[in-house]
């Protein structure tokens, strides 16, 4: 009876895993390898790959620069309005990418902020900059979440001891908090990069899906599936997966 329950749970786990791996496998096995290779060599695919990597790297840097102080502030300090800030962490749940994209579109396209930026020649809507903004806003809550829980797991006494030994808050942060958070920071960097690479809805709405202009890999996948170019679509899907895995292995 007991063994049945255990077996049942494990069976379900394998069933779902199996289906999922079958789905991933079909991505790699169904297409013709030659056609994938040809698709890889097209100007469109090369453009899209380059743009994806560049925008994701830039977004990643900005996300990390912002999420480390935000995660640290949420974990270590209490300040008025903290609970409001903390709701960022839960945002991705209640706020689908597509809606986030729409909100950003309205913010930068139709509000005073958009007009203000445009006066300085900064255009976000339907531009490459829009890709970075979309990726940034999509990935940041994830990064903050990981960094926040990383700092939460570090006993604040390490910092207290450092303070009592004569080091200020900033020095303590660099001497103690950051080295102790090393693993969490690495993890969040990878996840941020992968998240930026895969952002679709936000980018589609804010930056548009223009052929060979704001075309990142997810857009390539989408555009080509719409035109019925399955090989191009599958190739960009494979590229997306491979890049994510390389990122995970590289760190």
């Amino acid at each position: 009876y007991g063994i049945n329950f255990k077996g049942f749970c494990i069976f379900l786990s394998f069933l779902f895993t199996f289906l999922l791996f079958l789905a991933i496998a079909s991505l790699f096995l169904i297409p013709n390898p030659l056609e994938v290779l040809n698709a890889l060599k097209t100007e469109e695919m090369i453009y899209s790959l380059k743009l994806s990597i560049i925008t994701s790297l830039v977004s990643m840097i900005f996300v990390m620069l912002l999420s480390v102080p935000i995660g640290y502030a949420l974990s270590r300090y209490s300040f008025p309005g903290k609970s409001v800030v903390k709701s960022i962490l839960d945002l991705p749940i209640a706020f689908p990418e597509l809606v986030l994209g729409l909100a950003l579109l309205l913010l930068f396209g139709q509000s005073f902020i958009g007009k203000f930026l445009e006066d300085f020649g900064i255009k976000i809507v339907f531009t490459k900059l829009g890709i970075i903004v979309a990726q940034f806003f999509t990935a940041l809550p994830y990064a903050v979440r990981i960094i926040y829980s990383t700092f939460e797991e570090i006993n604040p006494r390490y910092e207290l001891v450092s303070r009592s030994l004569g080091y200020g808050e900033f020095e303590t942060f660099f001497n103690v908090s950051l080295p102790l958070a090393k693993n969490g920071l690495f993890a969040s960097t990878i996840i941020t990069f992968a998240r930026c690479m895969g952002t679709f809805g936000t980018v589609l709405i804010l930056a548009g899906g223009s052929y060979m202009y704001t075309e990142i890999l997810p857009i390539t996948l989408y555009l080509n599936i719409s035109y019925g170019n399955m090989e191009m679509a599958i190739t960009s899907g494979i590229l997306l997966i491979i890049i994510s895995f390389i990122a995970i292995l590289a760190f």
Partner: protein
Amino acid sequence: MNFLKIEDLSIDLGEFKLVDVNLEVKKRDYLTIIGPTGSGKSILLETIAGFYKPEKGRIYLEGEDITNLPPEKRNMSIVYQDYVLFPHKTVFDNIAYGLKKKIKDKEKIREEVTQITEVLKISHLLHRKPTTLSGGEQQRVALARALIVKPKLLLMDEPFSALDIKTKENLRKLVKKAISEYETTVLHVTHDFDDVWSLANKVVVMKNGKILQEGDVNEIFYKPSINFVADFVGTNVLDGEVIGKEDGLTKIKVGNCVLLSVDDGEGKVRLSIRPEDIIISNNPIETSARNEFRCKVEKINRMGNLVYLTLNVDGIMLRCILTPNALYSLNIKEEDIIYALIKATNVRIIAKNVEGECRS
């Protein structure tokens, strides 16, 4: 002027709190803070260290108001139960950490580290990472890290409670040596009376964020001022009534017995007699001690390397502690009649004008 002075310190962190704590510590005092879990002992240390802002009250160190000073400007070191050594630094770098902020001369730093590690017997560990050390070794490193900056105040939060008995004894000796060498003033939170007896000259008893009693070690253990403190330190507590004076001693009637005490009092009083101060013999002894009672041994309990006797002195129950060797040489068994001798100086009046029944 007191070295450290705390005035009306109050803070409420929900689970833990301090309520109007007043405390004065002299230079080179070794003060232990005892009390049950949740009594606010640790938070007192951490507030003194500057980790929490008090809601009320002031802290003065050497006459200077340091209430609003950040921790790094207070020149206090803290040692925790769980060592809190930086895992990414070697033992050497852990110990040198505080010093590096103050002096840049690497040779000087190396000298100072060598000195303290010799005192604490950890010179051979300098190149190891903290996680590879035993608990006792880690705590010695933490002590070295705390002492090397020659702090005005060393704060220790149950520093030995994660260690086994042997290591504890060892570390107490080292701490004693090190703090005398570095002339440190110490505040030490503990729940282990051994720490109190072997290290402290002052004791503070806390409960529910308040200081219940403070004083010399002997004062607290031999004359606990409040019932809770007496209970907490394990003394015999008796209720009686003062019936007069005799040769300058106070005569107190407890049940059918009369006890003599050096303390003054009148009316109903509460007495404390420590179980290890009751002297046992098989025959009446002729001594200067005035309280001698014939009593029956109700019960003999062996607890650890001690024997607890429950003595029935004409209806009053007294707990008394002996070592097995004493029990052997006296040849005492349950139901035996023996004589209990209590010096008048060991019968302490801990409360006056008490209502209530005789307990014990």
